[in-house]
């Protein structure tokens, strides 16, 4: 039962932390809880479907179907997060230059809302499908009583969600003008971690084959299985033995979003008087 709890906790942690961060990051969006609920709901429903279809999915593309699907999910999630970072930087600029009345800015925020829903749904889907698959397998393959599985799984799930809530509450204590700069940096690192994971998925599937050897090994001082290793892996994509390609994608992902944020800023002469209010990346 403890094993079940631990696995469910690990599968939930990343999604829960991410939802916690996005909940804090979207404090200025009207109806954010509905958006977040929608993202989690869609992701959970999708997890069930994906778990049920896993047998078919894995047979596609010569046994690489799951990796292909994973790569697509990672790509789309990365784009949504990049979009969120870019649009919230613009939004801050427009807010402070009193341009928010313009329909333009409002329409853009509308789009940013769908980016939030999609990013959450995909993150929940990615982790959730594995959790559902595990539970289904556990119930059918072991002589464990359903109650024990339910109890263990429930405890793991609850612990994961509690960590996400703690993340949200912690971030919520940050005063308004600093909050967005912190959440944007966290989302930026999370997006870079998705990019690194994409590199690993493509290498694992054999579609990328250069720079596949590990650059360094920090599994001695900070193993992936230690609590801090697990937390850092979920939050910023810590990897004890990253390949060159993973590092390249990580840094490339960071640069792409930072450049996008810079480029998309309106080049108007009447710069905001209080730049500290704009949630931009530094």
């Amino acid at each position, binding site marked *: 039962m403890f*094993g079940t709890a631990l*696995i469910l906790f690990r599968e939930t942690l990343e999604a829960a932390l991410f939802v916690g961060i996005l909940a804090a990051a979207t404090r200025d969006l009207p109806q954010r809880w509905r958006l977040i609920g929608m993202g989690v709901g869609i992701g959970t429903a999708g997890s069930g479907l994906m778990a049920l279809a*896993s*047998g078919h999915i*894995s*047979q596609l593309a*010569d*046994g*690489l179907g*799951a*990796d292909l699907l994973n*790569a697509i999910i990672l*790509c789309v999630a*990365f*784009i949504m997060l*990049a*979009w969120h970072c*870019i649009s919230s930087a613009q939004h801050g600029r427009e807010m402070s230059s009193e341009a928010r009345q313009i329909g*333009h800015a409002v*329409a*853009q925020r509308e*789009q940013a809302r769908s980016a939030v829903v999609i990013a959450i749904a995909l993150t929940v889907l990615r982790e959730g499908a*594995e959790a559902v*698959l*595990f539970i*289904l*397998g*556990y119930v*059918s*393959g*072991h002589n464990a009583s359903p109650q024990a599985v339910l109890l263990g799984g429930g405890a793991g799930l609850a612990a994961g969600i509690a960590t996400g809530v703690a993340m949200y509450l912690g971030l919520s204590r940050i005063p308004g003008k600093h909050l967005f700069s912190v959440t944007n940096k966290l989302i930026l690192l999370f997006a870079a971690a998705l990019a690194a994971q994409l590199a*690993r998925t*493509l*290498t*694992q*599937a*054999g*579609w*990328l*084959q250069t720079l*596949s*050897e*590990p650059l360094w090994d920090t*599994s001695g001082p900070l*193993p*992936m*299985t230690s609590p801090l290793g697990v937390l850092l892996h979920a939050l910023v994509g810590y*990897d*004890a*033995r*990253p*390949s060159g390609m993973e590092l390249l994608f990580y840094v490339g992902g960071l640069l*792409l979003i930072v450049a*996008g944020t810079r*480029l*998309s800023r*309106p*080049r108007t002469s009447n710069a905001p008087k209080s730049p500290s209010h704009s949630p931009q990346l530094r």
Partner: protein
Amino acid sequence: MPSLFTAPLRLVMLAGVALLCASGVPAIAADAEATLTLKNHRFTPEELKVPAHIRIKLTLVNEDTTPEEFESHALNREKVVPGKSKATLYIGPLQPGKYPFFGEYNEATAHGVVIAE
């Protein structure tokens, strides 16, 4: 003034191009092949010998009815294999040495080691 769609669209296109480039790379002919079979939540062979310094195409055959997640921190790989099915993944090129792996869903019995030499 930048338009509404340019930045996200540019990102989509860049990601698309990156993925296309990545998927277009042809596999080297010199990959070695190896197979791991899972039955009753145990891997066979538990010691899998593979050549060092070249890439290995590893086929995972799950003969159990339950899914398993092949995981190895040393190899930096994780892959779910549904019950009664097969999956493929690439590992290496590896330096000579031992690389432990395990089945995350049944860690007590499902474990083994890749030996590169």
